[in-house]
Each structure stands twice: as structure tokens, then as C-alpha cells.
């Protein structure tokens, strides 16, 4: 049952979607961008759900990943796939700077990481000799050609980001079901009690932070090679934090599919509908959405839908049963 559903999703993502939408460049580019957000949203949810930390600074990891990968390819001639990996590692290393904030509980961590996001943006602007400063980097090498197929095309980029997001989702689910995931979930209920049982809670939280930063960095690196251009105001813009937060909360950050579905829905609606109605300031609706979700369904849409569907399924199961008895 579960395997069947997985195979269906894979066929849909790798077969049906590219086949149907390939001709439409605009929709494809929105899809790629929404999957980019989905990847960050997943990394954010990993930190939020397993690590129990709300981050308002993922833009920092995104930007660091994109800059490192872009500079590696441009200045050192590193091949793009390797550079993307280095971008991820760089973002994880950058997250070391956030480690002292792990000592702080909930709200303090969230605000401390918000402050860090500002730092990295200023650094990228100020170290102009390396990063090109506010003028930005032009002509970042595109995604490579593999087996004679140009991955830099819209379809190629779609296939790459889909694969990245799926791999991340797989890693996430493996961690969640492992011993570590169990320990992390136990930490939600009582960190002190978990510590007494012998779980190194700070180390586990730090590992989640590294992993989340690593994932976000890779997504950032992908985006840099996909759009071939970077500037500090773009790479570190607050949107890279805000959209994933809205997506994860909307979809339900405690679930695996929630952030992914949330990102695709939120981003497409934002770009296709809201942007045409309110050209500047269309994100006001996203802010309102965030507020409404927290107030009325803090667990997000997916669990809510699941509950509704579950009830209906329970009802439909009950009726045939009575028939067979008769």
C-alpha cells in the first residue's frame, strides 16, 4: 500500500509532470522555484520537528551555500556537482557560528539566528574582493551536461531539484524512524528527562542544525547554478526564510509531505495569482496565512486533511460491513 503510493508519486514526478508541462516554460520555471522552496521548507521542518527549534535565519545558509558553490566553480574551476556539495558543507560549517545559540531555549534561538542572517548578508556585501560585493556575480557556470543531456534546461533543472528534494525527504524519514529520531522526539516532551536517560541532547540538536544547514546550502547552490547570477540582496533575502516557514506551517511541519505540498501550493498561488493582484507587497497574504494557520490549525493542513479524510474513510468502511452481515 505504502510502496504503491510511493511508486505512483515517483511516476507522477518523473513521468507525468515533465511530459505534460515540458512545453510550458513559465509553468516549469515556477515549478522549479517552488521545489527549491520545498527543499528549504523540508530542511526547516527537520530542524523544527526533530530539533524542536524554530529558525528565522535559513536565508543565511541558503546564501552561504550559493556563494561558496558559485565561487568554487568560478575561481577554482571545481566541477558543478562537487561545488554544490561543497556549498552544502560550507553552509553546515557556517552554522557552527550559531552553536552558542543552542544553549538558549526556544525564542532566544529563533531570534539569535535571525541576527546571524543579517551578519552573513553584510559580510557578503563587504568582502567585495571575493564575492563581487553588491554588484554580484555574473555568469555562474550552469548545471552540467550528463549523458548528452543538458541539465541546465528547464526540464533538466526540474529533474535535478526533484531528485534532491526526494533524497532529502528519504534522509529525513530515515532519521525520524531511527534511534536518534526517537531520542529527539522524546526531547520535545522533556529535555531534562531525556538527558538523564543518557541522551546527549545538545549534540543531537547540533547535528540536526548541521544537517538542516547542509540541505539548505545544497539547495542554495542548485539555485545559483540554475539562475547563473548572485547578489547579496538576492541570495540572503528574507524571502528564503519567509516562504519556507509559511510553506512548512501551512502544510504541517510535523509531517514529511506537509512542507513539500505546502511549498508548491503557497509558491504557485503567490506567483500566479497574488502577484498579479497586488504587484508589490503581495506577501501580505502569506503573513495573514501564517497567522490564520497558527490560530486555527497549528499542525498545518495535511494533518487536518488527513483527519477529515480518515473520518470519511471510517464511515465508508462501516457501511459495507453492515451490509455483509445482513
Amino acid at each position, binding site marked *: 500500500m505504502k510502496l504503491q503510493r510511493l511508486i505512483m508519486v515517483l511516476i507522477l514526478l518523473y513521468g507525468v509532470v515533465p511530459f505534460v508541462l515540458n512545453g510550458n516554460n513559465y509553468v516549469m520555471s515556477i515549478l522549479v522555484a517552488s521545489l527549491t522552496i520545498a527543499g528549504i521548507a523540508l530542511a526547516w521542518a527537520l530542524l523544527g520537528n526533530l530539533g524542536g527549534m*524554530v529558525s*528565522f535565519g535559513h536565508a543565511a545558509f541558503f546564501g552561504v551555500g550559493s556563494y561558496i558553490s558559485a565561487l568554487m566553480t568560478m575561481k577554482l574551476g571545481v566541477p558543478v556537482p562537487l561545488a554544490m556539495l561543497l556549498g552544502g558543507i560550507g553552509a553546515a560549517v557556517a552554522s557552527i*557560528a550559531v552553536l*552558542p*545559540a543552542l*544553549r*538558549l*531555549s*526556544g*525564542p*532566544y534561538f*529563533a*531570534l*539569535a539566528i*535571525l*541576527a*546571524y542572517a*543579517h*551578519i552573513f548578508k*553584510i*559580510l557578503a*556585501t*563587504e568582502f567585495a574582493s571575493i564575492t563581487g560585493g553588491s554588484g554580484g556575480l555574473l555568469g555562474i557556470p550552469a548545471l552540467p551536461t550528463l549523458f548528452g543531456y543538458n541539465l541546465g534546461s528547464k526540464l533538466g533543472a526540474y529533474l535535478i531539484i526533484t531528485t534532491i528534494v526526494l533524497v532529502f525527504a528519504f534522509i529525513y524519514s530515515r532519521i525520524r524512524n531511527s534511534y536518534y529520531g526517537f531520542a529527539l522526539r522524546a526531547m520535545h516532551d522533556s529535555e531534562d528527562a531525556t538527558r538523564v536517560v543518557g541522551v546527549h541532547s545538545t549534540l543531537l540538536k547540533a547535528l540536526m542544525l548541521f544537517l538542516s544547514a547542509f540541505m539548505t546550502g545544497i539547495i542554495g547552490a542548485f539555485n545559483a547554478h540554475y539562475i547563473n547570477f548572485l547578489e547579496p540582496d538576492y541570495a540572503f533575502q*528574507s524571502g528564503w526564510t*519567509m516562504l519556507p*516557514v*509559511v510553506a512548512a*506551517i501551512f502544510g504541517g511541519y510535523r509531517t514529511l509531505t506537509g512542507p513539500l505540498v505546502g511549498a508548491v501550493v503557497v509558491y504557485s498561488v503567490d506567483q500566479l495569482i497574488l502577484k498579479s493582484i*497586488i504587484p*508589490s*507587497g*503581495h*506577501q*501580505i497574504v*502569506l*503573513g*495573514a*496565512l*501564517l*497567522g490564520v494557520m*497558527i*490560530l486555527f490549525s*497549528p499542525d498545518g493542513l495535511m494533518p487536518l486533511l488527513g483527519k477529515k479524510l480518515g473520518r470519511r474513510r471510517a464511515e465508508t468502511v462501516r457501511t459495507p460491513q453492515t451490509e455483509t452481515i445482513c
Partner: protein
Amino acid sequence: MFDLILQSLYSGLLSGGSYALIALGLALVFGTMKVINLAHGEMVLLAAYMAYVMESRFAVSPLLAMPLALVAACLVAVAVYFLVSRIGKNRELNSLILTFGIGIILTNAILITWSADIHSTSSTGLQEPVTFGPFSSMLSELTFFGVSMVVVAALWWWLSRSWYGRAVRAVSSNRDAAKLMGINPHRTEVVSFIVAGILASVAGVALYCTGVIQPALGSSLTTKAFIITVLAGIGSVPGVLVGSVLIGIAESLTVTLFSSALQELTGMVLFLLVLFVLPNGLFGSTRRRG
């Protein structure tokens, strides 16, 4: 060079005044409700835009916008309180996300209404230079430093002497015990939000009169206020005052000695240092935070 350093110490001191107002509002609400209002900077910014509206539409001094700014900031504060108090479970983290959302709404509402342009006061009276020996500043900076000191003193008096102020402190230190003493915690929370709104409105008008405003400023104001409260350690009015002046001076020294682009970085570096070395803040009690 020495003159320049003296001068930057002076202007840092002056800007510390309005930083204190913003930080105290944030700390007050955190004290009573254990909620960090991420929309606090946007509240200040909204008050600043009220001053801008008064000046650009009605051609009156932005100082006269005070009542309007007061109403706007307090209305937003009460609205934030009302929404935050409706959060059912896991209030600590959910309130962060909620106020983050409110911040987005306010930033974009400001963007839609007044566009992304940078505004500053055009009143020449406010920008008039005032010089004492080696120190010089704009009249508005000096005025608002005075005003903030008066407001901070009033706040200090209110917290230590008046019934409601003491209720706020009681709820901050132990909510259940305060309830047993006949204090209505909900009303106290509303009061703390309104006081935060009042502080924000003064800070907002000061912001417009002494500097430039733009829609994206809100979140960096919140960050700055938060850095100051960490620096000071929660729960000390004089601590916040010293922390604000420290940040103000550090910032203006950075601008004088290095570059104005690094101004924001100074606060962050100080913040990092405090986190590593003195996690309880410069004036905090030895109690573990959080």
C-alpha cells in the same frame, strides 16, 4: 581624530535613548507573557510612518503626529495581544511564528500604502545643529534623547511605584502567585502590551525625526531591540538603558573608525561576545535563562 571619537561617543549616547524605548517595550511584553513580539519593530515603524503622513499630507511638524502614532501603535499592540492570547498550545514557539506573520503583514501593508521609497523629515527646525563645545548634533536628536530619558524615568517609576506596574512585575516573576494575590493576569498582559505600544510610538516618531525610514527597517529594529535585551539581561530597566547606550556608542564608533556599512555588524558581534562569555547578560541575575 580624538574629536571624532568624542563626537561619535556623543551621538551614540543620543541614539541609545530611542533604542532603549524599543528594547524596553520588547522586554516588558516578554516579561509578562513570555512572548517575544517579532512584530515589535514594525509597530515602531508604523508610528514613524504616522509622523511621515502628518508631515507630508498636512504639512505640520512630525512632533504633532504623536497622538496619531500613539493610537496606531497601541491599536496594533492590542491586536497582537488579542491574537497571541488565542494561541492554544505550545505558546512559546507558536507565538513567535504568529508575530513573525504579523510582522510580514505590517511590512507589506506599509509597502503597499507608502511604497518602498526612503523617507526622512524635511523640517529644517528639527535638523538645526546644536553644539556644546566639541559635541554637535541635530536639535531633533537632542530633543528625543531628552524625551526618551523622561519616558524611561516615567516607566521606571510606574514599574516600581504604581499598582499596575507592580502587577506587571509580579506577573513577570510568578504568574500563579500573582493570581493568588488578586491580580488579573490577562488585564496585566493587556496593560503591558499597551505600555509597549506607547514606548514604540515615541520611538517611532523619534526614528522619523532623527533618521530615515523605509518598509524593510522593521525586522532590523526588532533584532536590535532583542540584542539589547540579551546584552542587558532580562528584567532590568537600568540594564536595558546601559545596553542601548552601549550599542549606540559601538555603532557610531564603527561608523567613524571603519565604515557605515559595518554599523549593523557591530551589534551582532557584541551580541556574539555576550552569548559566549556572559550568557546571562551584563546585568542579568545568575538564574538560567529560558
